[in-house]
């Protein structure tokens, strides 16, 4: 599989009153053509900031280092003009809350048109035709009429479809999806997930899918990366990770998902809460909450090891974790 995006040692800091807070810490991963990567973790694990860091969509006080290689060029070193061409044109992003991410005072048609104007040479007429096509593509009926309507005239699911239409307007090669289904009803969630999968096939895009919902990962993603306290702690194909989690945190996450069709058993939960960015524990950041923690976990940050083909983990005691097996059967 051809690699389209290569992220190396990406680190994002925010200047705070008591020193810099590291929200994304030395994150590396790559993404293949037409691949869907799930970026998983609890709130505050840095998954959303990682996603936004890829296209430098950060407040001005944020500092970034590392490399984000997109089509042979480092996005972190791009001129503002080149960055503008990449954003929306080659890499698009959709947000969690369509209600707040769509501008309430502009008609949907204009919000699509803006994107087309910025990245294509289409004439006014051609852009109108393309906008209608996009509305059809994402499954919004009566496209012509709805283009002149405002976000408040759309239902939640239709708003999310409209946001996808805006993001896809200029045929991006990569879609960054920041919890796009979290704000929606379960039935609508399924429709939107299916839509994203269909569009991936139809448009041959790659997708990075940020979510805290492992059910969504299992249903949609090819590979997954689990984040904790700003770092990626485990990466692998979804099948491998679900079958054999190698990090205690991943194992905990998988154990906390309720399942039907199996014998009813108590849900596992991970004790404690994720650390705040200003107080990340020494050594392995997960050790205070970890059942497998030993002396070395409190002292040293584990390196990322390749334990099986395409399955990487940053855990000192991954062998012990493997021995206990997967909570998912």
């Amino acid at each position, binding site marked *: 599989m051809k690699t389209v995006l290569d992220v190396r040692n990406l680190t994002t800091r925010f200047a705070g009153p008591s020193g810099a807070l590291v929200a994304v810490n030395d994150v590396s991963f790559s993404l293949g053509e037409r691949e869907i990567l799930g970026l998983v973790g609890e709130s505050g694990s840095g998954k959303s900031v990682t996603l936004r860091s890829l296209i430098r969509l950060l407040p001005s006080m944020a500092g970034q280092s590392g490399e984000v290689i997109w089509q042979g060029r480092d996005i972190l070193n791009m001129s503002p003009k080149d960055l503008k061409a990449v954003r929306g044109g080659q890499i698009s992003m959709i947000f969690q809350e369509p209600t707040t991410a769509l501008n309430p005072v502009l008609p949907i048609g204009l919000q699509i048109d803006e994107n087309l104007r*910025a990245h294509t040479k289409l004439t006014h007429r051609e852009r109108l035709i393309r906008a209608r096509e996009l509305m059809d593509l994402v499954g919004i009926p009566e496209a012509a009429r709805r283009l002149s309507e405002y976000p408040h005239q759309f239902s939640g699911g239709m708003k999310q479809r409209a946001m996808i239409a*805006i993001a896809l307007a200029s045929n991006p090669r990569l879609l960054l999806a920041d919890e796009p289904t979290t704000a929606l009803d379960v039935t609508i969630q399924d429709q939107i997930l299916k839509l994203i999968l269909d569009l991936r096939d139809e448009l041959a895009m790659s997708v990075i899918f940020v979510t805290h919902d492992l059910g969504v990962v299992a249903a949609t993603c090819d590979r997954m990366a689990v984040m904790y306290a700003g770092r990626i702690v485990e990466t692998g194909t979804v099948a491998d990770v679900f079958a054999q989690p190698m990090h205690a945190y991943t194992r905990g996450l998988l154990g906390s998902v309720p399942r039907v069709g199996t014998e009813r058993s108590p849900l596992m939960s991970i004790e404690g809460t994720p650390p705040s960015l200003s107080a990340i524990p020494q050594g392995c950041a997960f050790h205070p909450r970890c059942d497998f923690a030993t002396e070395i976990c409190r002292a040293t940050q584990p390196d990322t090891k390749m334990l099986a083909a395409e399955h990487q983990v940053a855990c000192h005691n991954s062998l012990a974790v493997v021995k206990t097996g997967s909570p998912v059967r």
Partner: protein
Amino acid sequence: MPLASFILRRLLQLIPTLIFILIVVFVLVRLLPGDPTSAILGDRALDADVERINRQLGLDRSLVVQFGVFVQSVFTGDLGRSISLKVPVTELIAQRLPITMLLTGMAALIALVLAVPLAFWAALYRGRAADTAIRGAFQVGLSMPVFYIGLILLTVFGAKLGWFPVGGYGDGFIDHLHHLFLPALTLALSLSAIIMRNLRSAIIGVVDAEYVQFARAKGISARLILLRHVLRNALISTVALFGLSIGTLLGGAVITETVFAVPGAGRLMVDSIYGRDYPVVQGLTIALAVLVSVTFLLTDLFQAWLDPRVAR
């Protein structure tokens, strides 16, 4: 067409407003101390003369009848004759009100030109030196009384430097603008301070909004993001405040017109109250009230245009 029906509904709302204005004006004028008959005749008038004048002015009839006559004549465009100046009130208003409208319009324009760019600047560099300096300067402008600012401007730019006339209205439109610049600037300074502060915090509230992030993620130009996504949303609350301020400005032109000797509606109002010139006070109050109502109407319409959710 939600906007069309909104405009229609908003126009219909004007009717009860106008009726209410007429009642208030009618009652208020009769509550003023002193009466027009003694104003015309003086303190030592004969009872017979007082009765004759009362009958002439219709003041001997019951209040209800007086109100009926009043409403009827207002709607036929007859606001009576000025007691002291002996000319139709409509004629006086037609002379004086445009001056106040021009003054207010200029003040509003100057205030916007000052406030909008500076609000952007202060908001985008919030917490830095430029922000502190801009807010400090406007704070001074806001805390000084209008007549005092007027006097300073008059002394410096009128008397000392001689750039602007120190009073009057001049002849011809360009001359009017020249004469009204200092009084308009005086009014504009405090207005722009209010607008600047409001718009600054509105912009700060909007700049970090998700839809602005989404617009950035689309790769459109920074200019478009600021003007279309940030300014338009930030203006929604500021427009309401601006409309209210214009209303206050129309009524509050009295002080400025006095300081700068501008023969506008504010001056006419003060003179007529002192002279117990009932018909002029009545007519002018109605005209100003209608003007303020129309200003609010336009404000609402502009707001509905900015924000389609308003017209729902």
